[in-house]
Each structure stands twice: as C-alpha cells, then as structure tokens.
C-alpha cells in the first residue's frame, strides 16, 4: 500500500507558503506589486524563462528521489548538499579521463559520480550498522566536510586558470546533454529525471528488493522478524539515496553548468528535501512537487533580477514548508499515543 497523502493538508501548506512569500514581499520590497508580478509571472514569460524553470525541475527530481528512497527504507539522508556537489565533481573529472571511450563515456561518468555519492551515503549506513550512530547526524556532518574538500579541489588542483570563475575545466561537448528549448538551459536532463521516477517507482513497487526495502521502512522489527536482511537494508537505501543525489549533481553539470563551479549546488540538497517532503516520499508525487518548487525558485530569481528583493525569499518558502510539513507529521505520530 502507498503511504496515504493528505492532499488538502498539502494544499493548505502550499497556500501558507505562498502567503508567506506575499507577506515578506510587502515587508521587504519598496515596490511590492512589481516584485510580486515578477515573482509569480516572471517564470512564465517566454521560452527562455519557462525553459530555465523547467530545467531546475530535473535536479530537484533526482535529489528528491534520493531523499525519498532513504526514507522509504527507514533511513534519513540529510547529506544531499554534499552528495550532490561531490557527485557533480566526480562526474566532471571522470569525463576528463573517459573521453576516449565514445558513446559509453557519458553514462559511465555519471555513474562514477553516482557511485561516489552512493558510497559516501552508505558510509553513514555502515556507521549506523556497526556502532549505532545516528545517520541523520553523520550524513549531515560528512556532507559538510565533503563540501570543503571539493571546494579545495575545485579551487586548487582542478582549477581552470583560463576563466575568472573558481571552477574546473569544462567538460567536452560529447558529455553535454542536448538542449530542448533554446535559448533556455532546458536539456534532456529533465527527461532522464522523469525516467528515473518511473524506474524508482517500478523498483519500489514491483521488485523484491524494493519490497524488502519498504518493509524495513514500515517496521524494522517486523523486517528482522520476517527474516529480511536488515543489515543489508541499512546500507542499501543509503547507497541508492546517495547515488540519486550524485546523479542530481552529474545531471546539472552535463545539462546546465558544464563545469563544477565552486558551490554551484549550494541549497539544492535542501530544496530537493523540501520537494520530497511535499511529495511524502512517493516517486510520482515528486513530479508535481518539483514543478511547484522549481516555479517558486524561478520566481525568486526573477524577482531578485527585476526588483529589489534577494534570492533568499525562496528560503522563506522552504522554511514554511519544512515547518508545517514536519509539524503535521509529528502531530500525527504524537496523536497515536495521546
């Protein structure tokens, strides 16, 4: 059975988030109406804006799948920030070595990034299994250490001296994803993201491994009792989760940035987490949730460019969503006992 989603509740929370945007714009902007105009209509003004807004959906989908698959298996992966960034970096440098392999090189480079982030996340699973450390803490901490390491590598050994950016060399054209809606950034990355939703959904609902992973998420005691390999399913959801975060990073390099720019992915992990929360970790629901969040993100960016508010306005939306969704979840959990 799928986790039940309380649709009206989600809608109320979304409305509250939008209301928070409106209120903060009125408080912060010198010309609130102009700001709101760009916020809500900006993302839809023409091919360029629409394409860019849809493009950020792809990364959000991959990231949200990453968080969700860990949650479905009963584990937390709060390391999205570092795993996206790390996966992006590894995929980038993998392209430098793999270029000669021809058509198989791009998927291999993406897989290298996914494998790297998957192993980073699985490390937290291992620590949990071996010493009972809380993966919520370790994923978070390791992720931040990883960001600093990648920052060093991007700014040091892998720095491309020919640009003014703190960034790696550009990846070769053979690795760059095809554009769909020129002149916008929209690439085939979005199609791969939608494909990933189908694959994850199929995995969770139709495969034996997905079945066992979900049982672990529903009730680990019951999984143990049933003879399911609970040790393996402490590691595996974490690995998958990290791998999807890694893909999120790789896809944004191949589709949009074409080089690992220092901290280019800052905030992506948390945004993806917000999307996963709205979708209640169900693959199909991630698509509309990502659409919604990408729209708000594009709106914030537009409002920042054309008016006098900062991009951080999206953080308010994120905060409202985190706050209300987690409190709704907590209330449900608490209500069972009281």
């Amino acid at each position, binding site marked *: *059975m799928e*986790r039940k989603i309380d649709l009206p509740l989600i809608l109320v929370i979304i409305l509250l988030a939008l209301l928070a945007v409106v209120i903060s714009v009125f408080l912060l902007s010198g010309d609130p109406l102009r700001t709101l105009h760009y916020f809500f209509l900006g993302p839809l003004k023409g091919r360029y804006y629409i394409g860019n807004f849809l493009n950020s959906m792809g990364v959000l989908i991959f990231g949200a799948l990453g968080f969700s698959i860990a949650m479905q298996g009963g584990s937390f992966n709060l390391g999205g920030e570092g795993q996206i960034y790390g996966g992006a970096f590894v995929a980038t440098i993998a392209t430098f070595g793999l270029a000669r392999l021809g058509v198989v090189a791009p998927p291999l480079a993406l897989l290298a990034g996914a494998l790297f982030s998957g192993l980073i996340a699985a490390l937290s699973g291992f620590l949990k299994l071996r010493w009972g450390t809380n993966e919520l803490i370790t994923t978070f901490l390791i992720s931040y250490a990883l960001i600093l390491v990648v920052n060093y590598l991007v700014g040091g050994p892998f720095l491309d001296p020919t640009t003014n950016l703190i960034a790696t060399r550009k990846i070769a054209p053979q690795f760059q994803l095809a554009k769909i809606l020129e002149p916008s950034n929209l690439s085939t990355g979005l199609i791969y993201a939608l494909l990933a939703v189908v694959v994850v959904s199929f995995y969770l609902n*139709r*495969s*034996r*491994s997905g*079945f*066992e992973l*979900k*049982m672990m998420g*529903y*009730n680990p*005691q*019951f*999984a*143990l*009792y*049933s*003879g*399911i*390999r609970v040790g393996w399913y402490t590691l595996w959801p974490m690995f998958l989760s990290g791998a999807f975060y890694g893909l999120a990073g790789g896809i944004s390099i191949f589709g949009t940035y074409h080089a690992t720019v220092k901290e280019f992915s800052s905030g992506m992990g948390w945004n993806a987490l917000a999307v996963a929360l709205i979708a209640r970790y169900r693959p199909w629901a991630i698509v509309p949730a990502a659409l919604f969040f990408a729209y708000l993100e594009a709106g914030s960016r537009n409002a920042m460019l054309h008016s006098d508010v900062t991009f951080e306005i999206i953080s308010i939306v994120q905060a409202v969503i985190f706050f209300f969704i987690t409190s709704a979840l907590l209330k449900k959990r608490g209500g*069972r006992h*009281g």
Partner: protein
Amino acid sequence: MAYAVEMVNIVKRYSETGVLANNKVSLSLPKGKILALAGENGAGKSTLMKILYGLELPDEGSIAVNGEGVKIDSPLVANKLGIGMVHQHLMLIDQFSVSENVTLGQEVTKGLRLSHRQRDAEVTALIERHNFPLKAEERVGELTLGQKQQVEILKMLYRNVELLILDEPTALLAEQEVDALFATLRELVVKGVSIILITHKLREIKVISDYLTIMRGGEVVGSYKTAEIDEEEISRLMVGRTLAFKTDKSSYQGEREEVLRLEGITLNAKGAKRPLLNNVSFSAFRGEVLGFAGVGGNGLGELESLLGGFVKPSEGHVFYNGEDITGYSPRQLRHSGLAYVPSNRLTRGSASQASLAHNLIATKVAQFTKGGLLQRRKITAYSNKVLADYAIKGGSDAAVGSLSGGNIQKLILAREIEHLHDYIILSQPTWGLDVESSLSVYNKMLDLKRRGVALLLISSNLDEVLALSDRVAVFYGGEIVALLEGEALKGATKETLGAYMLGLKGGGVSGT
C-alpha cells in the same frame, strides 16, 4: 472516610486495536493507606494508572482527588494534584547526580543561576528524613537498581506528592531490596502519603497492602481489605474461573521425536542482579503441545525473544533436529524452519502500513519472486486464498492497520501456520480474540499436532495452557520451577499452576 482518590466507572478502549482495556472500572483509596492493584498481564492495571496519571484519557467515567472532581489530561495536572508515579522502567539520567535527578525540572535557582549547594543541602535533608542509604552527590549511574528506585521515590517526595503510584516496583529487585522498599513505603504512609502499588505477586500484596483491588480482562473482579482475604482466594480471583472447553489431547500417532532442545540456557541482563533466564533446559517433541506458564517478568518474554532469535543466550545451547542453532539470527532461524506467532503483534508481528497480502508473504517473499520481480498475480491469488481459508475480514490490498486486533492476530497466525515446517512458537495466540475465534485457533493447533508438529505455547491464559498442553513448564524468577506432565498434569488446576507461578511452591522439576 476521606478518600485520596476515587475512580468511578472508567472506560477506556484503544482505538487502533479495539481492545477494551478498562470496562467500567471503579477504585477507591482512603487517605494514608496502601492499595494493591493486582491482576495478570493485560488485565488493565497499567491503563487504569496511566489514566490516573494523565498519560491516557478515559472514554467515560470520573475521577475525584481528595473528594473533588478533577480532569487529569496530562502528567503536569497530575503533579499539581499531588499525584506521582514511579514507572516500572526507571526514568533517570545516569550521568546526573542523585540531587540533580531529584530536582530535575524543579531546579533550585538563585536569580538565573543554579544553586548547587542549596540543591544538595535540600536533597540531603530529604534523604535523611527518610533514611535512604544515598548521598546527594552520587552519580545515579553507579547505583544499584534498588537505590535508583529510591531516587525515583525521592523525586516524588521532593515534589510533595500525596498519592504515589508504583508500577510493579519489585519486578527487578532482589529480596533485600524489596524489604527496604517496603520499609520506605510504610514510613511514607505514616507521614500521610497514600500509595497505589501495581503488582501481581501474592506475597507482596499480603505483606504490604491495606486494601486490594483485583482486575481481570479489563474489569474489577473484587475489592477487599487485604486482611480479610487469603492468598488462595486472591490467586483464584486473579486467574479466573475455568472456562469449559474440551479438546482432544492425545492423537498424534507417530514416533516421539525431539524437534527442539534447550540446554542450560542463561540470559544475563545489564544492571539486574539476577539473570532473566537461569539455566533453562527443555525439549519439544513432535506431535506435542509444550505449554509455558508464568507471570510477567519471570522470563517468558525473554524465552520468546530467544526462541525467535531476537536475543542471544549468555550461556547454553539450542538444538533443532540435532543441529546446534544457538545464537542464530531471526533470518537464519526462518531458513531453518522457524514459525513464530509473537505476543506483540503490532511492533513485531506485522507492518501496519503495508497491505495484508504483503504482510502474508513477508516471511517468504522469495517464493513469490521471479527474476528479482514480485509476481503480483500469484501474490494476490495466494493472499485471497489464505484470507478466505482463515476467515480474515479484509481485502488483500487493505492496510493491516485498518483491521481489528483480532483480525490482525488471525492474519499473523495464518501466515505462520502457512510458513510452518515442523515446529511453531505461539505466544499469546488468542489474546484479544473472542471465544469463537479462540476455539478455531485451538482446533487449528490440534490439527497441527496431529500432523506431527511440535507446538510451543506461551500463554497467560491458563485455561488454554491446561486444555491444550501435553506438558507444562512453569517459570518463576527466570527458572523452570515445575514441569508437569502425565498424571500430574491431569490433576492440575489453575490453582496448582498459580501456586508455582507465584512462587508459593516450586523446585520440584520432574521429568525432562
């Protein structure tokens, strides 16, 4: 007479399981007296006390404290009314000192700063007033269980409680610690505190209480002055009258072959003075029901967990058809033939968010997999068949959480019986089932027995233990104190078992 507390016609039904935990329960306690609240596991004692302490809300009924009607909807309200509770599982912070634990939440402050000296002085004074062998500065982690319990009591005294609830306070204590506890309780009573003691130990009831209320199956079966009732009568009231159902006991025709054997199993627990299981040995044979009886806290819960692979013994061996399976994980046991109906159907026996079908196949998903993919049609067909065979009300796709407690139990039974190889562990198999469903479970069990299955039945329902078992092992204090079989079992009544279970008789282990 002035009453410290009066609870009238309390009704509490748990919505998830549909269990009626308290059915029009009334109880009263005169000021400055000790009331023992006695009954088997699942009799509803703890629920009633949780209601009094504000941890659960009653569906119906009223409560009066010191003669005034009150609504207690949180432990904070209970504290304000002078009600304190010492839980069975102590709630202390090991890293803190005695005085820190005692004053937790009511810290002594000087302006904004904590005043350590004043706090220690206050707690020391309190300790001296009650003659506890404790020091205010000692770290709680270094204390024995008995001392920790005294800290819990101090905590309550510090908050000036007038009514103290103790939930099975002696469960983990050694003899001398029990004596010390009772001395403390007597002193408290002299100082005007009223006490409710949840217990199911007969001796303690007689030794310490002034009044006695006995519960069974969510109802009060009687309230007495302790001096006016004898132990046998208490025992009889606690376990209830004999239900009349007849079963055909001897019908397996095959060889008497050993399936499962435990040898000298000991299970040590951290911090407890005595082992949870002590040198337990027995064999289970084909075509035989081996019953286990014992009061909660005497080792049956641990035995169940051990047989299910959830805990590993500190000493001893387990053999299955001659093979040493000591320390096998649940997964290994499942592969080697374990079928197991756990007493805790929601936390261990099922995944309430998953569908009925998925709960039914969770233990053998490999049989419904082809090339790594689930065979959905086969799963649904199997599930529909099992649901029909076992008369379980609910569709294959419905979530287990939407079923009643009885139906969940039937589902678990169905899964385990279908999974069965040559032995099955059944813990509280009819808990929460009505009479008709219980009978169908019994018939199923006897059918398995005829087929040569070894059945291990752990149950607090002595009627079913006596009616179904070919042999009965009685546990007390983590040991088998009696193993009844043949003529001895035929002549046994619930009173006989009760006497062993409550530690009144014991030591005479006969046979294997």
